């Protein structure tokens, strides 16, 4: 899967989870850029991304990913 497609699908998940159609994620997007992205929503986001790509993040990844770029890289490595 191309990186571009991953970001398009991630964007869809982000808009759904945070209920905000104005979101446009890039590899540098972090929790600071999205007001509702706190520790509670983080786990909802993780679960939604897992469902979308049919993958599983491990707990180490869940607690350490710093931005959307890292998330996309993990997704890319899982669905190769």
């Amino acid at each position: 899967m191309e990186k571009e497609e991953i970001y398009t699908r991630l964007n869809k998940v982000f808009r759904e989870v945070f209920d905000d159609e104005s979101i446009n994620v890039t590899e540098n997007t972090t929790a600071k850029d999205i007001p509702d992205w706190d520790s509670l929503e983080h786990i909802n986001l993780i679960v939604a991304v897992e469902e979308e790509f049919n993958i599983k993040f491990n707990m180490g990844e869940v607690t350490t990913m710093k931005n959307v770029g890292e998330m996309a890289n993990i997704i890319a490595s899982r669905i190769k």
Partner: protein
Amino acid sequence: MSITSLTFFLLVFITCLIYFVIPQKYRFISLLGSSLFFLFYDNFNLTTVIYVLIILLTSYFSSLLIYKYKDTKKSKLFMLIGVFLILGILIYLKYSNFILLTIQNIFNFFGSNITFNPVTRPSTIGLSYYSLIMIGYVMDVYRGLCLPQKNILKCALFMAYFPILPSGPFIRYNDNAESLYEGHNFSFSNLYLGLIRILWGLFKILVISERLAQIVNTSFNNPDNFSGLLMFLGALLFPLQLYTNFSGSIDLIMGVSKILGINLPENFTSPFFSPTITEFWRNWHITLGSYLKDYIFYPLMKSSFMQKLGQFTKKHFGKTASKKITLYLSMFIMWTLIGIWHGGAYTYIIGSGILQFIYMLFEDLLSPVATKVNNKLGINSESKIYRAYQILRTYLLFSFAMIFFRATSLSNAFTIIQNIFTTSHNMQITSLGLSVANLIILLIALLILFIIDKISIKNDILEKIKNSSIELKIVILGIFILTILTFGMYGIGFNASDFIYSRI
């Protein structure tokens, strides 16, 4: 050993002396020596040593085996063995009586007259901290976040670094272990900043907390003698006593660590300026919150049970409700555990657990309603007055929950609450144990605390002091020492050892 005792400061002084004199690569061993001395100073017997050793050896060997068998099923098995063995010891040593009492209450509820005699278990200082820190370490190795420590002495130091034993903060292997092993060189800057932080901690403990303790102890210990306003004052001041006592001890141990060149994570960031309880807990005992988030809340939310519950509720109640149901259930479990961690008593479970959960639940449920009401009434929720109201509301809610935390039993808590709402005996404020002069000192000290806390929300005060002129540095140090010597409550016969979080 109390961290405000002369023995503790003597231990710190000797530790620093040895630490900076011996070769760099052996410095961590001197820290380990001091840690073992501190750990067993009050309670040295074979049983205690054995329990400490079991926790150390369990974490040491399970982490090595987890790594050896990584990416296989055995890895998970060793992680589970490690976690449950340490957890088992913690529960056995700390919660035996609480479990027995709960079983007894359940039997009594169903009409049986069974009674258990309380059991005595050996315990060491810091058990609640070092057992959870080592569980975190074992899980981090399993999650691939860090490599296992092959040197057992280094592993022991990570487990029992002495300044954090009485009241935390929780440390993480990835973030803090290297700093413990490194063997830092002496620096005047670290010594100065460390001393300032120690003195700020002592100011909070000896000048403020010990005065507040007089009022709080007098009112809480004799609720029948006080009613109305005075009991309310006692309840209102307890959170401040807890804060100055707990954050003061954290300042003190951060200062000691700074002198040694060791940086620890901050545990408080001006919590009493928080507009909501949710925000309050992001600023209060931060390392506990972040520990529980990573090791309990996230795994719980990602567990197959929660996923299945999520799918079931989504099908029957819709997406939004489903999200809330799993979230609230996980939060309820986590906050009950926080309550239990604070101590094996219903007062702790209600005060620092379930009530906090209820507050957050209502904050989440009512926030859209509040926004609508504010819009309709034309209330500006961004205004300073509205923010002040939110801060006050948060403080009052927290104070109410802390009545349970401080009370000796549930019935004691209800007596206190009842007394707050009864007519006052018209007693003098000085009947709470502090003279007018001491009350004035307390008020001024509290004002200083609030100003410093307010400033530190947006500024790194220590960094500013670090960059100031040498003259100003001397003046600041002098003012601190003089203030504590003059207004601190200490001396022969006085024992500031009742550290609230050391009971944990």
